[in-house]
């Protein structure tokens, strides 16, 4: 049906047919009516019983040909048609009883196709009104009729279509297996007709980028690591030499989980060494309680650091892509939660130039060729650099990943011997550039219209 409708639309669009929609009422037999058509109207059954010699209502009812609830209708009908007379309290059939009543005639002509109400004579209409009074005999349906006729343009096509009139539209299993396809002509389809849209399942566009980044890391020899999103202040801040009165540790910037503390955030040795480096470096007391408070990690570095502290590698390359949190006001450029990409490489002779080289290669694999480096500051790396990449679409330099070498105050207390090159940054920024977004919130809106519209491959 759907295909027919589409076909009609298409032909109409091409102006080969004209379409006229008419509405008409048709009369159909309803359930009771259909039963009656077979068994006869109650008055007919009554008169037949009378002819067989059952002269009283009681006798007729006893014979079972009509039911109690039909008695009134049967008597009224038989009288209206003058089929019976009452003589001394007994019913007698008249000669008129041989004649069909208008209702019987009407019922007989109704079939499953129904009858167009406009084609009835006035008398038939009156009969119809009578029948309508009987419950469930008659149904009147409003029907829409679509009349399709060929236009002149359509008619001109006919000769070329003649051949196809006997052609099959569908190649069926039966045609294939029976071999009948050999003798069958198949009609040509309108291959230019539009088909309905299909929406495949797909990964989230941001996940596409995450996967791309992971592949690049793996290609550069990095091993993936992962860890909890809720971290103690010890690993999120203290181990990274962030002083306890640093503004980043305040509630305005960082999410603390209400009332949650980790009693033993690290080994005694780690706590001892890190607290003493804080006292020396920042010249102030170090509060062990502050280090126990649980924060939604503000970067993935605490995960990296715990991994390095655990395995203390001579050399190695590790990466993670994970969520991080900042207590920000959500806006077109800020989210409270986003993805951070982080890579670290350690080796006995790892250098700042190596870090720049890794960076350059990483960007090249993302299709970014023009980059430059500026010095900058991060609390736990020294030297620290900021990478700037040239965006062809925006025609300007944009800030991307930050990087640096972990400070000795970070590595030494944890027994990490060699320089650790580290870089990282937000992934959403790359996604915005890639997808041409002005509002970072779109990435988490889950608007189907957007999700379905983002091309998966960059041409």
């Amino acid at each position: 049906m759907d295909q027919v409708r589409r076909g009609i639309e298409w032909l109409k669009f091409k102006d080969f047919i004209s379409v006229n929609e008419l509405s008409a009422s048709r009369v159909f037999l309803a359930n009771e009516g259909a039963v009656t058509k077979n068994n006869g109207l109650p008055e007919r059954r009554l008169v037949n019983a009378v002819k067989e010699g059952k002269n009283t209502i009681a006798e007729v009812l006893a014979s079972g040909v009509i039911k109690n609830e039909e008695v009134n209708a049967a008597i009224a009908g038989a009288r209206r048609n003058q089929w019976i007379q009452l003589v001394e309290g007994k019913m007698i059939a008249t000669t008129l009883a041989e004649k069909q009543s208008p209702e019987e005639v009407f019922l007989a002509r109704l079939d499953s196709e129904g009858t167009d109400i406009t084609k009835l004579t006035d008398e038939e209409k009156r009969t119809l009104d009578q029948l309508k009074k009987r419950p469930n005999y008659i149904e009147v349906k409003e029907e829409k009729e679509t009349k399709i006729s060929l236009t002149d343009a359509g008619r001109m096509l006919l000769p070329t279509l003649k051949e196809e009139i006997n052609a099959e539209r569908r190649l069926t299993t039966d045609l294939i297996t029976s071999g009948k396809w050999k003798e069958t002509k198949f009609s040509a389809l309108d291959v230019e007709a539009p088909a309905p849209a299909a929406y495949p399942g797909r990964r989230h566009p941001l996940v596409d980028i995450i996967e791309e980044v992971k592949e690049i890391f793996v290609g550069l020899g990095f091993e993936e690591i992962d860890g909890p999103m809720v971290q103690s202040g010890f690993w999120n801040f203290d181990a990274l030499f962030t002083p306890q009165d640093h503004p980043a540790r305040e509630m305005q910037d960082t999410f603390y989980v209400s009332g949650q503390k980790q009693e033993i955030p690290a080994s005694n040795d780690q706590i001892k060494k890190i607290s003493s480096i804080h006292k020396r470096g920042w010249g102030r007391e170090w509060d062990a309680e502050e280090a126990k408070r649980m924060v939604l990690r503000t970067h993935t570095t605490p995960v990296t650091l715990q991994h390095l502290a655990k395995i203390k590698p001579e050399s190695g390359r590790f990466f993670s892509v994970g969520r991080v949190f900042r207590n920000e006001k959500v806006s077109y450029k800020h989210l409270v939660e986003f993805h951070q990409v982080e890579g670290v490489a350690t080796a006995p002779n790892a250098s700042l130039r190596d870090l720049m080289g890794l960076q350059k290669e990483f960007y090249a694999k993302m299709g970014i060729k023009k980059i430059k480096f500026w010095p900058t500051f991060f609390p736990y790396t020294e030297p620290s650099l900021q990478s700037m990449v040239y965006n062809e679409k925006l025609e300007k330099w944009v800030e991307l990943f930050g990087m640096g070498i972990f400070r000795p105050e970070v590595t030494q207390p944890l027994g990490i011997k060699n320089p650790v090159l580290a870089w990282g940054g937000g992934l959403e920024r790359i996604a915005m550039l890639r997808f041409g977004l002005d509002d970072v919130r779109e990435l988490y809106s889950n608007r189907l219209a957007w999700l379905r519209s983002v091309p998966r491959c960059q041409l």
Partner: protein
Amino acid sequence: MPVVNITNDRLKKFVPGVKVDKVLDILPFVALDIEGVDSNVIRVEYNPNRPDFSSDYGIARALRGLLGIETGMPKFKVASKSGQAIRVDPAVKKIRPCIVALVAKNGRLDDETIKQLIAMQEDLHNGVGRRRKKASIGIHNLDAISFPIIYKAAGSDYSFVPLGESSSMTIGQILKESEIGKQYGHILDKFDRYPVIVDSAGTTLSFPPIINGDITKVDTKCRNLFVEVTATDQKAAEDVLAIIAVTLQDAGFEIRTVSIGNREMPQMRPNQIAADINYINGILGLDLDARQMIMCLKKSRLDAKTRGSKIICTIPRYRTDITHSIDIAEEVAIGYGIYNLEPTFPASTTAGQKNLLSTYFEAIRETMTGLGMLESLNFSLTSKEVQYDSFGIKASDMLSVDGSKSIEHEILRESLIPSLLQSLSRNVHEEYPQRLFEIGKTFRKNGEIAESWNVAAVVAHGEAGYTEIKSAIQALLKTCFGKDATTKAASSPFFMSGRCAEITVEGKTVGMIGEVTPPALERFKLRVPVAGFEINLSALTGA
């Protein structure tokens, strides 16, 4: 990040003969970001580790170094002792114990210099001073002061004329009524006595860290200044004073010391750090000799000499950021010019790999998208309303965060299903069927915080129901893990009773499945039936 404005007129004096474009090129290479440029002003952002960049004088020092106009440590000279003293009343020890000060003589202040000094003061207050809590600065007209000065504690009824007012106010009034008092009063909340700086004539110089007195106000007519810094931390006080001292000297003042206790302030003795030449070369990936390295350091405005295999580096007092030989390495790099560093690519000796979880996620994504589902990404931080109230759940053990700026992000989610319903809710005007899934972290309070990776899916359309979603979970578990899912009747606030089950794998419960309750559909403004499941991947895989 804090911002400094540099006018072109002043720039011409700082770096004579250098074009503005050249300055704009070079600024990023002394770690300064250009925030904006207009016809007469460059707005420069600096990093919080460099409070000495809080005025254009500080930025000029670095620029002149890298441009080679003036290299090595800037000369700083204390002209003489001022002979003046501050007496400290022991009563302030418990309130705001530290005070340091200096006298600056024979300078000239024009409007732009005053602007720079005020901006510097504000930045130092916010940065090193931790919004005045740790340290704050008062700059006064020296000629309005009669020495000696006393730094003492006073009650809330103590009164003086605060800066910008015409009549006297009590400390209590200042804290309650003035804007500045309301802004910073919390620093003194727990005290009933307040710090004041008063001269021998009884003139109130300052009520730190809130406001100065009006009588010592500085304007362009002032030739001589008195600067005090009060603090809770002696080092912070001295760091701030050193930056002010060098800045005022650059502005043309002679700096004279003030005696506090038995010490003359400011203390400007440079620090020395020895750094191994090989270590620095190793860190930077360079092969500089001692002479080249010293040249780089001088361009970074430090002094240096060699001793054996080491460089002995002299660091001016105001460079509070240099504490370790690694900091010397960075100064070498900046003096060398970051733009001169060629990247080198170190080949990997190991093969990289993704972790097990990533492998699972990939398989799950492939299966779910194969079932026609669209991946959704939602925040871990959600609202109590979405996560609990919408399902009539009375949450007793939820994990909330302190001080969130938005009620949409106030708790850590325990389940992914509510987020997915929220996603459906945003798409009611889109074509159905809609099928979404998500892989995400969930959080539960279990003594400490238990995190687990969950997978959830929802199907929404006119015919959506239990059978479809059960087929999906069966397919997922079979395809990804070769496991059969069993479903056992259960109840859940998300799902209709009689149409809800636990998902078990080898006897272990790993999740829930069912048809979402009509009240929840109503809450999320959904007009089609929705069926969904959620499984705990960590419980299933142990990963």
